[in-house]
């Protein structure tokens, strides 16, 4: 795999992650627990979809189709998002835990990419870093709040964490271009990222009184990066592209 192919692999998984979790989180719009939270969660979902568009634009510059075509015309097996991002929103505890686990990984990924040798990506990472930092502040505040809330809130958060955990490990599924990206100093690699991620989330979960599942039970839900998805992704894509499909040539 040459460095351009490796770079595309990286950009696809990042863009697809952002688009799919952005779409999922936007499903809370109008039904969030309180008005302020509804607005905050919707706004962050919008941020993620915006970030995905910028990443698709980088792919377009590398010869792939334009952002709309990439977002709206591919089938599930052509998507490279981690399976974590495509799971249904569930109850708010699950959406919050997913938001927490995913956004910390995403913040650290962008943090490292600020020094990427691929300048267009480094510039994008610098631009988005602050935005994602807020997303993690929002997530960790909620996790602490509910982890330290009452028995019910703590039990719900723990059970959501257990449910999401192996899917979250799937974020760090390694791609074929891994070594090339490291050699070219484009990206630090998924293993390094996962270690940073664990170091970042562990103290927050401890403070919240929540326990990371025992290591003996860890089984990363891999496959997403290679186009293997749960049955939840295709219906999401069908819904997301419903309007686009009516008239793909329409100018909005």
């Amino acid at each position, binding site marked *: 795999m040459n460095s351009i192919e490796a770079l595309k692999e990286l950009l696809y998984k990042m863009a697809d992650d952002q688009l799919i979790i952005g779409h999922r989180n936007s499903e809370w719009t109008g039904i969030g627990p309180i008005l302020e*939270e509804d*607005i*905050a969660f919707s*706004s962050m979902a919008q941020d993620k979809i915006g970030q995905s568009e910028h990443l698709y634009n980088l792919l377009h510059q590398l010869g792939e189709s334009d952002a709309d075509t990439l977002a709206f015309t591919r089938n599930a097996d052509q998507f490279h998002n981690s399976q974590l991002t495509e799971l249904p929103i569930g109850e708010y505890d699950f959406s919050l835990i997913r938001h927490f686990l995913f956004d910390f990984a995403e913040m650290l990924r962008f943090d490292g990419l600020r020094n990427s040798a691929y300048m267009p990506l480094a510039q994008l990472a610098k631009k988005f870093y602050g935005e994602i930092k807020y997303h993690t502040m929002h997530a960790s505040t909620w996790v602490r*709040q509910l982890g330290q809330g009452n028995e019910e809130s703590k039990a719900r958060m723990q059970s959501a964490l257990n449910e999401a955990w192996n899917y979250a490990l799937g974020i760090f599924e390694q791609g074929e271009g891994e070594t090339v990206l490291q050699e070219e100093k484009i990206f630090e690699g998924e293993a390094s990222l996962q270690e940073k991620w664990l170091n970042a989330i562990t103290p927050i979960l401890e403070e919240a009184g929540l326990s990371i599942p025992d290591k003996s039970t860890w089984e990363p839900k891999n496959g997403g990066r290679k186009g293997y998805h749960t049955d939840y992704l295709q219906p999401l894509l069908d819904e997301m592209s419903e309007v686009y499909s009516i008239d793909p040539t329409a100018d909005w």
Partner: protein
Amino acid sequence: MAEENNEKIDSLDPRIMRASLDHSDIDPLESLDQFQTFEVFHQAKRGAQHQHVGIVHAPNPEMALLYAKEQYARRGVTANLWVVPSKYVFATSYFDDDMFDTTPEKIHRDPATYKVMDKIKEYKERQEA
């Protein structure tokens, strides 16, 4: 503060006080049964004054700041935000608003009426001459 005083009297309404009602069978509202409100102050750039922009509902200051960011700093430029529990705002009474009646007439207190620019200009011209 007002809250603590309320513990000693049943009501500020003298008619309720005179009625000597028995409140023993009424459950008081639990605290945080509803989130409290926080007043939000927005600063556009460092050194500028924080301006009041509105309120948010939140269980504590930390979450109030999170919400203030999305409600009031989502668009436009922001350097800093403050949140202050609304219960700590002390206000004048509208009943007394006649104390402000003559304020609009006191234009001599408004620096806009000073002819200072003319004097500065005059001074500069004199210096140059």
